[in-house]
């Protein structure tokens, strides 16, 4: 397996449980040592370092966990201070930095509480603050939102995106949730049985999934295939999948193509949404009318930059 993550990007690894994604992530900071091969982070080849050097390098790699892994016997402040004390900062420096971090993750009110007194989302915020304490180059997220409810997940993802944009930290995350990839990742690798089966920009991989596993994940958020087939069998006209990416999403292209032709259009299913900041749409439409007119519409749509394929 060969994987390169670019500086400053949010890279997602998605796979079903047991696919090897967690092992892959843990190889990045050598919590798990690969049997062969090398791991380089920010130009340093970790696999060749001594124990002590590795400890130093790990301080530049933040990590957050599905179950947060906070010290239960320490307050929020003490938890965040932990990596700073490891880095041997002075008492005053530690106190200052902890205050900055509490502010960054929005937990100013909760500094003196213990983890057991916090909600899941708050615990993960502590985890994030702790991971960012030593100004890391990279943040590893091990299923960081899998133990959280959907609303809290969105808030934590927004925080991660904000950190990536403000601080320029490269984020490598693993998840089994499509939603996570869709909302914050730039690039994605789909992993199955210990190998990468598909890799690329999120928008490409998920609008044109090639591998069955990728298809599975896409279907999770779309309507299921069998429902779709049932719907299609009951229709009279010709049915097409139309998809488009970018600014055209908000243009009246479909209307313009159809209006003069006399062809009737019905939208059977549709999604118009965004992947990270890029708008995209995917519609299943039915055209009822003459063959020549419909072909004319298809040509027009394609000319305007839409992707059209006929479904049978």
């Amino acid at each position, binding site marked *: 397996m060969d994987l390169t993550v670019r500086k400053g990007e949010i890279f997602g690894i998605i796979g079903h449980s047991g696919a090897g994604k967690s092992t892959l992530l843990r190889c990045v900071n050598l*919590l798990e040592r690969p049997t062969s091969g090398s791991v380089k982070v920010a130009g340093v080849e970790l696999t060749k370092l001594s124990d002590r050097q590795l400890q130093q390098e*790990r301080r530049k790699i933040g*990590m957050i966990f599905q179950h947060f*892994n906070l010290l239960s016997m320490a307050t929020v402040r003490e938890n965040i201070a932990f*990596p700073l004390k*490891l880095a041997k900062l002075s008492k005053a420096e530690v106190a200052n930095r902890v205050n900055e971090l509490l502010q960054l993750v929005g937990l100013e009110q909760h500094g003196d509480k213990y983890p057991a007194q916090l909600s899941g989302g708050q615990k993960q915020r502590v985890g994030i603050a702790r991971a960012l304490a030593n100004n890391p180059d990279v943040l590893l997220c091990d299923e960081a939102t899998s133990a959280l409810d959907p609303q809290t997940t969105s808030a934590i993802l927004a925080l991660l995106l904000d950190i990536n944009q403000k601080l320029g930290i490269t984020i490598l995350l693993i998840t089994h949730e499509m939603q996570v990839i869709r909302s914050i990742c730039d690039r994605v690798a789909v992993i199955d049985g210990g190998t990468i089966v598909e890799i690329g920009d999120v928008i490409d991989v998920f609008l044109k999934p090639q591998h069955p596993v990728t298809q599975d994940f896409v279907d999770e958020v779309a309507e299921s295939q069998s429902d779709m087939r049932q719907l299609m069998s009951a229709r009279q006209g010709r049915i097409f999948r139309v998809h488009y990416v970018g600014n055209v999403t908000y243009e009246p292209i479909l209307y313009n193509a159809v209006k003069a032709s006399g062809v009737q259009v019905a939208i059977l299913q549709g999604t118009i949404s965004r992947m990270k900041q890029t708008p995209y749409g995917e519609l299943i439409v039915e055209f009822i009318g003459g063959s020549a007119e419909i072909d004319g519409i298809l040509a027009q749509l394609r000319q305007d930059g839409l992707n059209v394929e006929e479904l049978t």
Partner: protein
Amino acid sequence: MTFENVRPDEIWEATKDTLTMTAWSLVFTIVLGFFLGLVLFLTSRRQLLQQSAVYGVLSFIVNIVRSVPFVILMISIMPFTKAITGTTFGVAGTIPPLIVGAAPFFARLVETALREVDRGVIEAAVAMGASKSDIVFRVLMREARPGLFAAVTVTAVTLVSYTAMSGVIGGGGLGDLALRYGYQRFQTDVMLVTVALLVILVQLLQMAGDLLVRRYSRK
């Protein structure tokens, strides 16, 4: 019932002896037992210093000492006791067997308490660049604190009962008093008073321990 045989000065001396023996043996048991328990934990499977051979040998020794009844242990290590303290009698002669008997017991309790620490927390510390000593002192000892206090409490109570047993070989203290007057001379009143004092001592220790455990529990 009258308490004609009860001599307050003797009772007081015996109580002081019991307290002295319990306190000194507890201190040494905690130090030695904690170290032994820590080594047992660290060298066990899937832990920081995994060393199956070391763990196997230590575990075997601990099991052997723990399976010998305390009375037998006390008698069988008499030469060792004499070599260290110069006597096998009284308070001084009782402390070494108490430690030898209680340290392996405490070590097992320490091992169990450390095992209760969430692996994820240890892993997070490793990921943050913690060294092995950081993990022992900043993570394990902190996270296991309630369990360790509970272990100390149980061990202290066990030591009180061991001190009583040491009366058999002339160990002194309340147990000795109960044995010599209560059992051998049929002075039931002395026996009752000493047993009552032992009960009070155990209750106080357990209450103090529970208080500490509660004070440090965060879950």
